């Protein structure tokens, strides 16, 4: 088995962390493990390591040509830094990041604080959640016509959301 980071040396350090019932696994060679501070009892987080690896994973799977229309950030850049370029990048790269976010966090959507400017969209948000669930169900039951209809509804709501946020945007 080869090291997940350098893909060259034989992996001799096998790590498993169970975070909230989800199993995270990584196989590393001696020197990469050392470099990532895996030997230290404290101060090591598999989740952070997965960000870096996930970054590499994402850029292999997706088309490398994808670029953020706002800031010009590419997947290759994400692979290098493990960070995104701007808030608009999240929209561009979200599909590629979905599995990474799932492995890293408790859930796949935000349930915390909402800025006052976006509060009036909260109701919209709840409805969106409902639609997403319906869509999943429709696909599962192979009711593709229903699914297409629900998808259109979601798109419409997304457009509406953007418009309200745009209107609430303050001048800098």
């Amino acid at each position, binding site marked *: 088995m080869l090291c997940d980071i350098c893909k060259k040396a034989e992996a001799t350090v096998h790590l498993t962390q169970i975070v909230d019932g989800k199993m995270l696994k990584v196989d590393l060679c001696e020197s990469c493990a050392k470099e990532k501070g895996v030997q230290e009892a*404290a101060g090591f987080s598999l989740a952070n390591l997965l960000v870096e690896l996930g970054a590499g994973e994402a850029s292999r799977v997706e088309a490398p040509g994808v670029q953020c229309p706002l800031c010009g950030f590419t997947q290759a850049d994400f692979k290098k*830094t493990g960070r995104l370029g701007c808030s608009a990048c999240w929209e561009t790269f979200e599909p590629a990041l979905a599995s990474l*976010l799932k492995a890293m966090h408790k*859930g796949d959507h935000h349930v915390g604080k909402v800025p006052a400017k976006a509060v009036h969209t909260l109701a919209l948000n709840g409805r969106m959640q409902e639609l997403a669930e319906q869509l999943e169900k429709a696909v599962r039951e192979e009711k593709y016509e229903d699914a297409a209809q629900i998808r259109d509804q979601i798109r419409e709501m997304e457009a509406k959301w953007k418009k309200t946020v745009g209107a609430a945007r303050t001048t800098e």
Partner: protein
Amino acid sequence: MKIDDLLKSPSEWVKADGPNSKIVMSSRVRLARNIRDHPFPGWAKKVERQKLLDVIQPVVEALPEMADHFGDSMDNISAIHKQVLVERHLISREHAAKNVGSGVVISDRETISVMVNEEDHLRMQAIKSGLQLKTIFKIIDRVDTELEEHLDFAFSPKLGYLTACPTNVGTGMRGSAMLHLPGMVLSDQINQVVQAVNKLGLAVRGLYGEGTEALGNVFQVSNQTTLGEKEMEVVERLNKVVLQIVEHEENARITLLEKKPKLVYDQIGRAYGILTNAHTVSSKEALNLLSLVRMGVDLEIFPAMARATVDEMFILSQPAHVQRAAARKLTAEERDILRAELIRTQLATIPKPDLSHRPRGDGGRAEPE
């Protein structure tokens, strides 16, 4: 406020007057925020960073919480002062490396600090003594609410607050508690606890955050996840786990005193002996020995008034603080000499270890004879 005025007195959070402050040295909550549709600091060009700093910095400085504050661009702050701020946990090590285009604003009592253009456009934190995560969250939550009136934060209904790193997306919140755990280190239980805490989705780190050593038996426990859970739920979960660790630490100390009282008194006595007599001490050695003296205060081997001195020494013995006290450039050797002198003088006010109130000096818990 000038930086020297800010640094004149120790941070308020060092005062060890908060709840559970014997074991929980401080609690901290930080929020990461970004301005919509502007490149994150790590990807922005210098001009873009500077432009945003010019917008954000005055808004932060105008906060009611910042009525008295120190605020400046990072390129105006000397390397020593930056390091002092790191040692006081007011800015990150990463932020200390920033210059033009990044800034910092710190409230006069050092309870609230805001880094502008660190990894995210805004990193705001509140820090207080002892275990009071809920109170601190409320403080920083209010700061965030005030800021959002003037700044357009990047937010998505699905993913929450959008951040540069996927590990922060959602709430952008990281809560942490700094714990002093000599009992569990001495009884070799610390690795078990670290693993158990990891399993609960919380991270354990050293004194100065990610990738740092657990000097002075000080550990930071913080939440790892930011998506899919409400802020208060995270804060409450963290609070609960910290309380459990506090209980374990107390038990570890009791067991140690029952089983190996001489080992405990020996370690504390030696630490006191070295610190009151040494003429050169590295910061690492100082922290590890101060930790034992601190535990001695908890065990009432030293008077309670000694706690403030010891806790202050935890910060004042750090390299940049020693350097700053000297007011001239020191070599590492000179620093170790000055540090020893500083600690010697301060600890001279603390009387010798006193085991008299512990019957027969064996921890007070009779073992079968």
